[in-house]
């Protein structure tokens, strides 16, 4: 009875059968540059944004928030310009998500000031009493861990030198700890005294959120 009495041949045959669809729809597109185009407008994440992105991943934010605006009229009305492949060239992993328990975040950058995010992260219910988002105030109680930042940047190939990595971290820290920071009050409210002059996890997450969709907005502004 041929293949049905030869388990090893059967296994090889099944492997071939499952690999046909895999090669055509997954492996071949990977070799085509048009699948993941690159645009000069879309810049890699800064070090602090990247650290914020890693916290976003750690907390599983992608389980409730998508990051793809679909080309549908009401969706563009609600969130903004629909998502383009170029925007995701530096995303490892991608974070498009599969369920919108919360709104899409692909265009959230620049939508609200930092102060809004500090308050909202601390207590979503204080801003929207019916929200079911978990509170993340404790992120402001954790100092941002940048021990692996250089290694991360080199793995991801963003091309920053080690000095550049340090400069970016110091720069962002100077920005949020400066007395003239526009969201100083909200930040001080959620950040414990001893961390007010340090970078916290919440600072990084907010930096990341403010990056989302920014490059596309800049591109549109120039056009």
């Amino acid at each position, binding site marked *: *009875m041929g293949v049905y*009495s030869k*388990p*090893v041949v*059967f*296994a090889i045959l*099944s*492997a071939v*059968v*499952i690999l046909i*669809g*895999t090669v*055509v*729809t*997954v492996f071949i*597109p990977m070799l085509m540059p*048009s*699948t*993941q185009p690159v645009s000069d407008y879309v810049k890699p994440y800064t070090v602090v944004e990247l650290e914020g992105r*890693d916290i976003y*991943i*750690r*907390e*599983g934010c992608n*389980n*409730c928030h*998508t990051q*793809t605006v*679909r080309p*549908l009229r*009401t*969706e563009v*009305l609600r969130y903004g310009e629909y*998502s383009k*492949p170029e925007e*995701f*060239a*530096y*995303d*490892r*992993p*991608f*974070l*498009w*998500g*599969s*369920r*919108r*328990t*919360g709104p899409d975040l692909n265009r959230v950058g620049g939508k609200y000031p930092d102060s809004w995010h500090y308050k909202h992260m601390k207590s979503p219910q204080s801003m*929207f009493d*019916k*929200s*079911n*988002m*978990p509170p*993340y105030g404790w992120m402001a109680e954790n100092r941002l861990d940048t021990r*692996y930042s250089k*290694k*991360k940047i080199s793995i991801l190939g963003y091309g920053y030198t080690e000095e550049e990595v340090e400069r970016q971290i110091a720069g962002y820290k100077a920005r949020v700890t400066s007395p003239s920071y526009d969201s100083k009050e909200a930040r001080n409210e959620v950040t414990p005294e001893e961390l007010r002059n340090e970078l916290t996890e919440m600072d990084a997450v907010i930096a990341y959120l403010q990056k989302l969709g920014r490059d596309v907005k800049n591109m549109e502004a120039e056009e």
Partner: protein
Amino acid sequence: MKENSYDYQIVRGFTFSALFWLIIGLIVGLWIAFQMFNPALNLTPWLSFGRLRVVHTNGLGLGFGLAGIFACSYYMLQKLSRTPLVFPRLAKAHLYLFNVIIALAALSLFAGMNTSKEYAELEWPLDIAVVVMWVIFAINVFATLVKRQEKQMYVSLWYIIAMTVTIAVLYIVNNLEVPVNLFKSYSVYAGVNDANVQWWYGHNIVGFIFTVPILAMFYYFLPVSTGLPLFSHRLSIISFWSLIFAYLWTGAHHLMLTPLPEWIQTVGIAFSIFLIAPSWGSVINGYYTLRGNWEQMRSNYLVKFFILGITFYGLQTIQGPTQGLRTLTSFFHYTDWVIGHVHMGTMGWVTMTISAAFYYMIPKITGTGLYSIRIANVHFWLILVGQLVWTVTMWIGGIQQGAMWKATDPDGSLTYNFLDSIASLYPYYKIRFAAGIVYFAGIILFAWNLVMTIRKSQEVKNQPLNR
């Protein structure tokens, strides 16, 4: 033949591992179901929804699902080959390794060590452990098959082979990552490609855990528990090859209207529609097997698990391709509709089939009857009602939310803000939680019944496995 040398210890071990992870996974499920309408349960970082959801999906998919599959596979493998397991000690190592991996997986996900790729969230050291475990399983599968005493392999064995091969390919390809340290890594793929690989994996890991091996169980346990031969082995051949061929093309229906190249999306829809055919091939095969013997629905308590199970499989395999169509996906995607769809499969098809398989195997290997058929019947009705209320509630919620997202006023502006749409679902979330409790009660009875069956057999004989 060498009946006494069959390794049933391993079947028992995986059966009770499955029950354990099933209960843990459902408790987490109830917890997050409550959080959906009352965020006060986000007590600590490790109890926050974002982390727990992953513990729920992995605990049930990998903990319960895989353990159930291993238990039934080791049983069917020996029975259908008429050969004892070739490496029983390796199988024992498999059992221990499996439980250690799932426990570490749960702990690491609680701790937020998470790659974010759905059903592939485990960080790289655990990925390696999973691959090692899979190889251990595959060695036993193929060694036993090669030594088998039965010339032709029955269809269930094909499904086991296909699962063994495909999961290996899927898991390795999607989990290729560059480690930063022991607890953190980055995917080797970027952006659109990462999404494409992930949903090729995400769709097929569901297919090759929640469909393929469950069909193997269905094709084996329905005939043996009714004494009726399968309606058509030829039909199962056609269904098998079409199913495993078409499955791998369809991942893109999870990425409709995203930046993924349009042709991949279109090919994904085409093959999704085609998949209805082989899926219904199995459904028809199941129904026709009972031809002329439908009174067994009443007289044989196991039959209703199988028949309702395959019915939910049939419904789900029509719903899935339909909701992937561009028009419908633009409405349903990202809503609770999809959550309802998934749970009809897992709470209906998968759990009912595994339940019946366990109810068949455990009395068989202990040599005593089931502790209580009445409890098994109550278990059936509780999980049936629990699941139906659960899924229908989510479908209604999904339709409502989809409609609210699309609603516009006459001037073209949006009628509802996002928060309106989620807050309007809270009544549904409360019903869903209640349905979950009903379902959970059924599962507790299920576990209790099997534990008591083992107890009973130990009372009857001092050596439970030496019939």
